[in-house]
């Protein structure tokens, strides 16, 4: 699959994306700093691929998703989707570009206008971007409802009459209305019950297969990302720590943060849970307004080195298809740090045991 993807040009190309929220202080409201929600993020998404974006709350993953669709005015960087740089489009061009990129939101309750019926909600994109007559629109609405498994009888109901899972289906139908190529799924299952999550994820997968969609799947649920994503980017404090193919990442995480994150996920199997080797990180995530000087993770990293506290590591490809932003893997530190080798060994052992 990866090979197949490589032969094509990426559908989404993000380069050096920065999203700063300025802080003004003092008498004259001078610009004294920024909340660096996203601080230089680059990645590609191939057509038909699902890129998982994981990280803890506040790491900037949702901001990346929104910035990609120009829901925020980004501070710096480029976002090329299907050949157009979305980041620099004028308002009218942007409007025209919108149909090809859509979003599914986290909270199915909050993302639906409580005063509109289901048909209105799903039909809204059509009103905005087509000049179809009412019949044609209605036909399309029914088609979409069928596609996401909503009974046509519900067309005139209001969102509050639906359950969470059904609402998320409405949200998906709305996103599909204009035949987008790329959909950002911003924590689409976080607010759903366990038994419903699977329904929605399966639906997303079915749709991808049927329509050839490309997803950016943002989630904090690592097991679900493992299920749905082809490649996974792990974010920490506004930067990508590691970007690897799914199986490789889950089998053998390279970045210490990715490693800790994976080990923290509870295992729904009591026998395995008790034998598992957990890495419990100490302390909290620093404020994005005042990130550490060197590596963002240096304050909590169990393998921190002096270098980490002063120099920010770049995201570099250390193995084929695997990118990591960590000094443990840069050529000079590999030799400098004696711990590097042992760590690598430990990792491989762990990987084998799985």
């Amino acid at each position: 699959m990866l090979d197949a993807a490589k032969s094509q040009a990426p559908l989404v190309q993000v380069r050096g994306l920065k999203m700063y929220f300025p802080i003004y202080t003092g008498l004259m409201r001078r610009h004294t700093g920024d909340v660096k929600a996203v601080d230089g993020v680059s990645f590609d998404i191939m057509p038909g691929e699902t890129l998982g974006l994981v990280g803890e709350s506040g790491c900037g993953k949702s901001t990346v998703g929104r910035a990609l669709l120009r829901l925020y005015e980004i501070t710096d960087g480029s976002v090329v989707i299907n050949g157009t740089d979305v980041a620099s489009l004028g308002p009218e061009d942007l409007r025209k570009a919108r149909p090809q990129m859509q979003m599914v939101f986290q909270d199915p309750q909050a993302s639906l206008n409580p005063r509109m019926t289901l048909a209105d909600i799903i039909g809204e994109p059509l009103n905005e971007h087509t000049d179809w007559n009412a019949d044609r629109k209605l036909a399309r609405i029914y088609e979409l409802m069928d596609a996401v498994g909503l009974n046509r009888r519900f067309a005139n109901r209001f969102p509050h009459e639906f359950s969470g899972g059904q609402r998320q289906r409405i949200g998906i139908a709305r996103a599909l209305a204009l035949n987008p190529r790329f959909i950002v799924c911003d924590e689409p299952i976080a607010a759903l019950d366990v038994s419903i999550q699977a329904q929605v994820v399966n639906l997303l997968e079915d749709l991808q297969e049927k329509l050839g969609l490309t997803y950016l799947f943002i989630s904090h649920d690592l097991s679900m990302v493992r299920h749905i994503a082809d490649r996974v980017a792990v974010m920490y404090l506004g930067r990508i720590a590691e970007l690897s193919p799914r199986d490789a990442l889950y089998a053998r995480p390279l970045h210490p943060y990715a490693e800790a994150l994976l080990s923290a996920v509870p295992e729904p199997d009591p026998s395995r849970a008790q034998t598992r080797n957990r890495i419990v990180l100490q302390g909290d995530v620093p404020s994005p307004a005042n990130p550490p000087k060197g590596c963002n993770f240096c304050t909590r990293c169990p393998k921190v080195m002096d270098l980490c506290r002063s120099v920010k590591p770049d995201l570099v490809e250390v193995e084929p298809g695997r990118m990591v932003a960590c000094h443990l893997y840069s050529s000079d530190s590999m030799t400098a740090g004696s711990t590097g080798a042992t760590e690598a060994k430990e990792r491989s052992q762990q990987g084998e045991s799985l």
Partner: protein
Amino acid sequence: MLTYTIRRLLLAIPTLLFISLIIFLLVDFAPGSPMSQIPLTIPTEVRLKMIEALGANEPVYVRYLLWLKQFFWVEPLVMLDGIFGTNWSEGMQRIVSWQSRSPVMDIIWQRLPQTLTVVGSAYVVGVLIALPIGIYSAYRQYSWFDQVGTFFAMIGFSVPTFFTGVVLILVFSVNLGWFPSIYDTSLRVRDWDTFLLQVKQMAMPVAVLALYNAAQISRYMRSSMLENLGQDYVRTARAKGMPERVVVLKHVLRNSLIPVVTVIALGIPSIFGGAIITEQVFKVNGLGALLINAIQGSDLPMVQTLTFIFAVLIVLFNLIADILYGLLDPRIRYD
């Protein structure tokens, strides 16, 4: 917090200057002349001369600039002179009322005490009544107490004060003879008897105004309490085994008071505005009576100065309310 305050104060300056200009133009634009209360027997030439002597025939911008200078330069100097016994302001023309030919600020200072005693204590009484009613109404939502409280609050909103005032006078002054119908501003509280007299003469105007204030504030208190009674931390407090008294009067009340206190602070400028109608009914002659008198007599310097002071107070108490919010709610810290 300090920079925030200073910043807000600095921002207030252009706002207030603009407000002062608007008020000046408005008042000047309004019909009526300072001569309207002069008997018709006084001939036209004399009227014109009087207007000239008042300076009321100068162009608007001249009068506005003069007023600006007087308000922002002369009056502060006069105040400093009053405090330190200096005489920097000697020979400077103060803002002079067209009606009484005396400095406007002196009259305002003279009026302030009675307005503060009557309208101010009505406000305090109103708040003191409103808070417990609001708290209990919310705690026992939809109980008969709540219903009755709501009903009285609604009555407080819906009956005009000139009506309640006259009814009170008829009942308590004319029929029962308990309270005087006319407020004696020259009464000095010296001993117990004069204190009683003062209380008696304040009773009715305070009651009328307090009813209105209490009605309003109790509604705020109630809805704020209701808002907080549903919060998670209330459940936590109960889970800790705290008695209901502590849960309601400590945990919920402290949180509910935050918005209410700011509402109360925002209402304080209205005290200085006086209560035009109530003051007229009971002849309290506070700042409200002063304003309405000045408006009726087209006493432009007085109207301008008074309304501008209200504007300053409104802006100031807006700021105070915001700062109070920050002080009371530890979550809010202005940088």
